[in-house]
């Protein structure tokens, strides 16, 4: 499919076969997708966020459909970092780029998870989940307060020599400020955006649709928000950006590249089609052929400006 077009990409020094990764929380630990796709054909995966100990998540109902999107309050259910290293990593294809996502409720614990993953050769990079919008004691404070975010990146930077990405929350006043804070503390790259805070109401039952009340909105509904934030962040920092937010097609992904992203993550669309990531990859190649672009990376930041009106 991608013959004649160079799709190769680079993110924080990690070489990728193509610029399409699967977003954390939407591809499990990878093996869940093996019945449907050849995982190694992806640019990579960002595995489900890991905490020091296993974590059970919120009481259901914890997902609901919304216009062109969905709202979730899973609350980062996961098997814990040790079980991931022991049981999940060895099962993945050797040539698959695996990024580990790290989440915790305290600075020291974030650093501990980073430290534990630092020595694991199979993990290509770490992504700090600083932005989960539905955890009362966790991500929201880290990702929304520039001083707390700075502390977080600092302690995690000290805990790992691996490339360190920070996944930013969109629920902030200035994404550019948050991006600069991360760059200033030594982050190697940024992933954005995480889910947008939202709420849905079941009017017949007069209750919030989710038991948790608030949830994180994802899917095509948030694509323009994500594009805007990638556009702003890429103008604020020099470190590479991985664009995330409702990507369903190759053209959606190209829009993120044009706005300054070096790579992208397909998230919620994998729920609707386990092969969505590979179809997005094929769509980027098709776009490049149609527009005579030899290398997908030539699209990065290549947004044209309007002539003076």
């Amino acid at each position, binding site marked *: 499919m991608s013959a004649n077009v160079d799709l190769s990409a680079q993110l924080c020094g990690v070489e990728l076969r193509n610029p399409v990764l699967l977003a954390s929380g939407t591809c499990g630990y990878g093996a869940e997708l093996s019945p449907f796709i050849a995982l190694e054909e992806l640019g990579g995966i960002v595995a489900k966020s890991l905490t020091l100990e296993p974590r059970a*998540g919120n009481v259901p109902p*914890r*997902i609901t459909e919304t216009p062109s999107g969905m709202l*979730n309050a899973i609350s980062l259910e996961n098997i814990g970092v040790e079980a991931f290293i022991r049981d999940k990593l060895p099962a993945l294809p050797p040539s698959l780029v695996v990024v580990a996502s790290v989440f915790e409720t305290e600075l020291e614990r974030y650093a501990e998870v980073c430290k534990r993953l630092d020595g694991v050769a199979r993990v290509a990079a770490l992504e700090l989940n600083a932005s989960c919008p539905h955890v009362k004691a966790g991500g929201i404070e880290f990702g929304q307060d520039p001083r707390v975010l700075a502390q977080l990146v600092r302690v995690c930077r000290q805990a790992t020599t691996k490339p360190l990405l920070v996944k930013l929350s969109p629920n902030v006043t200035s994404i550019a400020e948050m991006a600069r804070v991360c760059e200033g503390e030594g982050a190697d790259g940024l992933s954005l955006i995480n889910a947008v805070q939202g709420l849905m109401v079941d009017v017949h039952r007069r209750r919030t649709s989710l038991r948790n009340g608030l949830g994180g909105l994802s899917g*095509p509904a948030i694509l323009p928000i994500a594009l805007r934030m990638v556009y702003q962040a890429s103008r604020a920092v020099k470190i590479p950006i991985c664009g995330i937010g409702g990507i369903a097609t190759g053209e959606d992904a190209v829009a993120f590249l044009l706005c300054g992203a070096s790579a992208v993550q397909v998230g919620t669309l*994998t*729920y*609707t*089609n*386990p092969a969505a990531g590979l179809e997005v990859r094929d769509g980027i190649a098709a776009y490049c052929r149609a527009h005579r672009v030899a290398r997908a990376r030539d699209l990065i930041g290549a947004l044209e400006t309007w002539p003076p009106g």
Partner: protein
Amino acid sequence: MKRVIARVREAAATRLVLEVPGWPAHRPGQFAMLGLGSALLHRDPLLPRPMAVYRGDAGALEFRFKVVGRGTRIMAELPPGAQVSVLGPLGNGFAAPDGPATLVGGGSGIASLYELAAARPPGLRVLLGGRTRADILGLEDFEQLGVELAFATDDGSLGHHGLVTDLLEPRAGETVYACGPLGMMQRARELASAARARCLVSLENNMACGFGVCLGCVVRTPAGFRYVCTHGPVFDADTLGWQAQA
């Protein structure tokens, strides 16, 4: 498990027949995720719908459902030839009975039981219930099987005037297969337990993916969360925490 683009052969208020090329063999009680917006790249409605396979044969799959919301309304109005993505077969499905069996279906839950009934295991009883006669999905299909069959309706328009579980008299050592409202399944479990019968229930739940990555379809059990999509949809009723579900 695979995902294919199917075409609508026939769609109506309670019935959808899809031409599904290359559908792998499935077991009774398994389900599929039906992507209704596949031609629109799933943007709206975004999520595929989990739907029990009612019956399948050479190249076609039939689904039975009640229109309860936007997704099922779209399903009911699909024009012939429309594209629907089908991911499946998913879930564990029912274990085949190894002795006498009673099937208890309520409302749209009836759809999960047809293929089990159609296998006509020896000593089979089938009990179907709904609010009214029109709620008994596949009524004529079940009647044509020639199995021991009884009905219950809330309004008395068909069979016993009352609950379908009023008709349930589990036999010691048999398996009761139940799919329907939680209260119905809970009652089936109580009656089965009292009669020293085994009770298997098939749960339904909202889910985004159907294959274990969205983690949206959890149910609480005494042993922790279980996922309806990959641990179920069929569970031994004794392993579920019934009070927590209600």
